């Protein structure tokens, strides 16, 4: 958009880097996840959202149901062949600075089920930023992944990854 072209033309001087830091800080500290619960990892995701582990401390409490208001998609659970096109559609319908956390072994690599029914890894259809091992991973693992993602977002500054 306008400011990216401006940022390239001005090059990396004091203006764009501080602006980049500010934008990165803004985006990083309020990453709104999309409520994309599929299977067992979704239950652990709910645990992360409730008082016990409390993802609200990291600015990600507002689990949005619609992709229009979400910045990050947490693929929590196993993605079946029937669900794959729908997952891709929802990823497409998310507004632009968007990231993906692949939660659990089933989302990252097909996990325990290496058979015809599952998509062996969600990175076959959507670009993934952070993978979380575990079946299901502990809520603290999801928080750890969120913190890793926040560092990445802050480092990206004005122009996100794609």
């Amino acid at each position, binding site marked *: 958009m*306008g400011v990216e072209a401006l940022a390239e033309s001005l090059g990396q001087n004091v203006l764009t880097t501080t602006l980049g830091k500010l934008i990165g800080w803004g985006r990083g500290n309020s990453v709104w996840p999309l409520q994309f619960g599929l299977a067992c990892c979704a239950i652990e995701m709910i645990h992360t959202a409730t008082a016990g582990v409390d993802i609200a401390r990291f600015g990600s409490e507002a689990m949005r149901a619609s992709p229009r208001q979400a910045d990050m998609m947490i693929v929590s659970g196993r993605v079946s062949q029937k669900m794959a096109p729908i997952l891709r559609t929802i990823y497409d319908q998310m507004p632009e600075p968007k990231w993906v956390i692949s939660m659990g072994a089933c989302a990252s690599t097909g996990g325990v089920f290496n058979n015809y029914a599952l998509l062996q890894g969600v990175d076959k259809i959507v670009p993934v930023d952070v993978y979380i091992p575990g079946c299901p991973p502990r809520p603290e693992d999801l928080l750890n992944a969120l913190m890793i993602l926040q560092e990445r977002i802050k480092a990206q500054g004005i122009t996100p990854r794609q």
Partner: protein
Amino acid sequence: MLESYVPVLIFVLIVLGLIGALVTLSFVLGPTKPHKRKLAPYESGIIPDTPAMRRLSVRFYLTAMLFIIFDVEAVFFYPWAVLLKQLGWFGLIEMLVFIGILLVALAHIWRKGGLDWE
């Protein structure tokens, strides 16, 4: 004579400034890559093939109208509440008459079944 309205002016300016800044900043800073699938209507993951625009039932219109009537009624309470002291008994009785008329209307609608759905 207009000095007493300056705070209102400042308030309006602040509001417009804030909203203006938020909208332009997010419009300018947010990268936009529109493409066909992103602009398709969101229906929990399925791209709908049936036309969304269908003739809707009259009940929606009825409920909307009822809401507007009683919402506007509530707006009239604000000035009355501010001037309650000066108006004294006359203001109170006047407002009670006003509410009474609308209560009669509400009772009529309720009895005619305008409030419940089917």
